[in-house]
């Protein structure tokens, strides 16, 4: 279906992808769109691959994103970006935190963490943004804010004004962490 905006957020369980999708959803709702999100909980908290699918348009039916149709792929981790790449449409935007987290088969030596992920991503998406979100999050005050740093980067590619992002962050994050998250967003947005 044309006209639906498909944003795919991937990472590793515990990285805060769900909060990121909630903030984005609030922004899209405030922009007058219908929003659907699909996420799979359960085993995800235990460090497995996680995927949150967010779609917004005037009318959205299915909450799941079809392969080769994601307008934007936002990845919190290098290997997960590679895994989710087939979901990105031709000409879609790719934003990746250059953090590398080793999965168990790599730790135990039965698999290798690919050394050429950046090249492989760039060969498919030449203008992919591979960014050091972790350092920016540290600069904001906590590594945990890496999700909001990435949202700041994502915000540049979406037609919503800065103020609605700030409001959504205030609404979704814990009151104690509002200031740090606003700072993280500003650093990401640049």
């Amino acid at each position, binding site marked *: 279906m044309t006209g639906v905006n498909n944003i795919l957020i991937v990472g590793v369980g515990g990285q805060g992808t769900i909060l990121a999708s*909630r903030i984005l959803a609030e922004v899209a709702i405030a922009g007058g769109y219908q929003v659907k999100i*699909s*996420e799979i909980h*359960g085993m995800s908290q235990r460090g*497995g691959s996680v995927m949150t699918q967010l779609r917004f348009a005037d009318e959205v039916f299915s909450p799941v994103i079809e392969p080769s*149709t994601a307008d934007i792929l936002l990845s919190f981790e290098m290997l997960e970006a590679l895994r989710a790449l087939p979901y990105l449409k031709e000409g879609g935007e790719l934003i990746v935190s250059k953090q590398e987290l080793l999965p168990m088969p790599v730790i*135990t030596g039965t*698999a290798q963490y690919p050394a050429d992920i950046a090249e492989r991503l760039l060969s498919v998406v030449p203008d992919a943004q591979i960014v050091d979100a972790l350092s920016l999050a540290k600069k904001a005050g906590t*590594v945990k804010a890496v999700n909001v740093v990435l949202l700041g980067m994502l915000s540049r590619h979406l037609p919503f004004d800065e103020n609605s992002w700030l409001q959504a962050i205030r609404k979704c994050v814990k009151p104690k962490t509002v200031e740090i998250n606003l700072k993280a967003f500003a650093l990401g947005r640049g």
Partner: protein
Amino acid sequence: MTTQLMTGNEAVARACYEAGVKLVSAYPGTPSTEITENAAKYDEVYAEWAPNEKVALEVAIGASIIGARSLAAMKHVGLNVAADPLFTIAYGGVNGGLVIVSADDPGMHSSQNEQDNRLIGRAAGVPVLEPSDSAEALEFTKTAFSLSERFDMPFIIRLTTRTAHSSSLVSLGERKEKPLIPYKKNEKKFVMMPAHARPRHLDLEERLSSFMAYVEGCGLNRIEWRDKKIGVICSGAVYNYVKEALPCASILKIGVSYPLPARMFKEFAAGVKKLYVIEELEPMMEDFARSLGIKCQGKELFSIAGEIMPWEIASKIGGKEQEMLPAAAEIPARPPVMCAGCPHRGLFYLLGKHKLVVSGDIGCYTLACSPPLSAMDTTICMGASIGVAHGMEKAAGEDTSRHTVAVLGESTFLHSGMTGLLNVVYNQSRVTTIILDNSITAMTGHQHNPASGKNAKGQTAPAVDFEQLCRAIGVKKVLVTDPYDLQATEAALTECLEFDGPAVLITRRPCALLVKELPSAALTVDNKKCTGCKTCLKLGCPALGFNEEGKAFIEQTQCAFCGLCAEICRFDAINKEAAQ
């Protein structure tokens, strides 16, 4: 009107609030858990974690009989546990509205099977409503309460992982208080002994007939006429996929999955040229259509196993070229693992080291099955570990239990492991049962249980005393250890295995994810001492790695400072250092 983005589960909880529900009882189980977590946030609704789904449904039945609206929530396999009260309360009926939520898991994102509980509704004679998104989850749940009272029947709301865990906009309403419907003693309705149950079974059939008549004309099912070349019968999440994949097709959208509307099926089938029935898991609607003599296609196109995705529909019916995911052969998988600092890790390391047969159970610790721990032989269902180990010994002889253990978490033990332990004592096997006591139901996201000292509302509650409980059942050897202390745990394990009789080892330490204070020191690898033997990697800890120089390293952002790696390192190469 206020609208809010909600998951299907949040919407069901909201429906409880709006429909004047007095009581929600549940046992946690993905994907149903957040129903009760969210219901507990409403002061007007009493919500509790029961020890298992059978108790939860019995509690809801009690509330219904006394005149209140009540709800019991569970995952699909939980309804097996609660099937006993379900099949009989179908005969009895209700007083206050009674709704059971069954959250099914096609694709088994977080389950041991993918049974289709629409069939349980049919088998029990309990109507099944199936919402397709969060707005319908709210609307259908509220409707289920009034229909339950009107037709004197319990109702099942069937969600799937995609409806339970997907979010969409919901319009919120106000709460309408429902005063208790006066209770009148009626043993012919609620004492199900044979003389009463026989007429109640016939009565159930009559109630089902009158509900069937209602179903034909009700708005819960609807026909959406578009192009009549293709017609699709579907329900739940699949309805949205069909709208997405076949925007021109006519649709018979089923909201009442049991009993199905024969007249509507016939009308719809007669109106379209080519008819498809698209449903995840069992061909329930398809079989029904065929029983009416309707020609259709369904399971010859779509698998009986797993989820159906919109692009599959677009390709198989819409003729759209399917976008195939390229094989991810070179991309290492990222399976879920026990967290850094998990108190279960050390125990399973020991079970593997001693090459024991491990009769396992359901919880985070099922992950011990995966490499490198690879320390689990069986996992069947909640609480099965103890019965399975007992059966192994009784069939293969007493020596079996010298190298076999039953392992389960404290919440699973309380759910349905206790009776297995009672059987071990009564029928005199010498099974060693290990209870992993982290004082929380962790796998489903940290729900309180009778061992945690808090209730579903977060208030202080009595905590069960496992040592006393096991002794009262008749276990003579009950030991408790801290699983971070490998030496003590190993000694206790050996003592239990050698004991001539049933033994229980309780490994007690809170879930690492709930320990808030930061470690006072950090663990580091001394590269001069590390020989690269990889013994520490056998722990399967996500904080440990191996570098290009052939040495182990500790990822400081992940390490929870449990110290297990330092304990098992034979070269003293892992040291504590004061944290910066």
